[in-house]
Structure formats: structure tokens, C-alpha cells
């Protein structure tokens, strides 16, 4: 188990990402899976930085944890911004031609693609996103 909380801003982006990378490596993921975990977490972290606190500063918390039988790894990403359920977002049209495609909208789509389980809950005034990835 490891846990980090700090202000959700770009200055802390590398520290948050490094924290996750080391935890994923320690949990035993190979390089390719570590990068998938980084990808999923980056997309969520960037959204918290960009959207969770529109007119104030706020924190982000990341908790990493192997599951009981050691077959997988949980990452919880928590913010205290307005309620937002990323699972409720419609998927972008990834087949749209480049000229019509909106720049953006891919983030949550990619999270779904690389993560094995994905859960959202609102608890009190916090948004809790739980990502789960099997070790292999």
C-alpha cells in the first residue's frame, strides 16, 4: 500500500506519475503493462488537474494497492471537486476522419481500453475512481 496527496496542478504531474510508475513496477508489472497503467492514470490525473477545480485550488490523492491474492493492482484516484462520473461519458467516434475529429475526448476512452476494471463512486464531497489491472 502506498498513498500520496498533493495539490492537483501541472507542477506536481511528474511526481504523481513517478509515484504510480514505481508502485506499478514494485507490484511486478512488466514495462508494457506499467506503461498502460501510466497511460490510464495520466488521463485521469490530467482531467482532475484541468477540470475538477474550475475556480479554486484542490488536492488529488492516489492510492496504490495489490489485491489480496496478488493477482492484480488497484489504483484509486480521488479528488474533492464537483461530482463527475467519467463512466457516464459517451465514447468518442474514433473512426471519424481527422478533419472532423474533435481534438480531445480520447482520455477516458483510453482508460477503458487499457484497464481491466473501472469503478466510480461519490463519497461525501469526493470523487473516487478505482482502476484495476491484472498482473498478466
Amino acid at each position, binding site marked *: 500500500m502506498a498513498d500520496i496527496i498533493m495539490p492537483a496542478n*501541472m507542477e506536481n*504531474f*511528474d511526481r504523481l*506519475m513517478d509515484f504510480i510508475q514505481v508502485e506499478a513496477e514494485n507490484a511486478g508489472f512488466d*514495462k*508494457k503493462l506499467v*506503461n*498502460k497503467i*501510466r*497511460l490510464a492514470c*495520466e*488521463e485521469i490525473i*490530467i482531467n482532475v488537474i484541468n477540470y475538477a477545480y474550475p475556480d479554486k485550488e484542490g488536492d488529488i490523492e492516489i492510492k496504490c494497492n495489490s489485491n489480496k491474492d496478488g493477482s492484480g493492482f488497484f489504483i484509486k484516484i480521488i479528488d474533492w471537486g464537483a461530482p463527475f462520473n467519467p463512466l457516464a461519458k459517451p465514447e468518442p467516434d*474514433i*473512426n471519424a*476522419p*481527422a*478533419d472532423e*475529429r474533435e*481534438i*480531445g475526448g*480520447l*482520455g477516458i*476512452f*483510453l482508460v477503458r*481500453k*487499457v484497464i481491466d476494471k473501472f469503478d466510480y463512486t461519490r463519497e461525501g464531497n469526493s470523487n473516487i475512481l478505482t482502476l484495476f489491472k491484472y498482473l498478466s
Partner: protein
Amino acid sequence: METNFSINYENKVVKVTLSGSLDAKRAPALADEIKKLIGKDIEKIVFFAKDLEYISSAGLRVIIFSKQKIGIDIKLYMVGATEGVLDVIKMSGIDNIMEITDTYEE
């Protein structure tokens, strides 16, 4: 993990060599460089990605953006991308808007 990219523009071809991580922290600098090419006479943008280890949606967005802003008729190439990077490109459907090759011949 820094992204060190270099850009070269010659004979209507832009060559972009990528390495390390192209993430939300590092993609904006690349977008800034590509913006400087808007208005130039360009036929191809070639991304050399052999040493690129990691890409996120922020990195993909720069690629989509380069086609949208430089000109929708230009050809994009992604050369030598590793399996992990290629996975992300395919997942997001960006492989439809670019040619993916192992090597590049002038």
C-alpha cells in the same frame, strides 16, 4: 523520462524525431514547434518513433493537430514505433490517419 524531440523541415518534408515520453507535460512544447510550421509548404510529416517509449492522449492530440492545422492533405508517417506506442495509436484509431512503417526511405 524527458521527451527530447528534434524537428527538421526541408524539401516540403517535416521530420520529427521523438524519444522518451510524449505525455501531457511534454506534448505542449512539441505542439508549439509544430505551430511554427503553419503556413509553410509541407507535403509530409514523418515521426521517427524508435526511441519513443510512452505516449498518452496529449501526445496523440499533437499528431491529430498537426494534420488539422498544417493541412488536411499532408501525409503523416509514423516510423519504427515500438509495440507499446503502436498499441495506443491503434486503440485510438489514429492509425487511420497516418501511414505506419518500420523504416523510412527518402
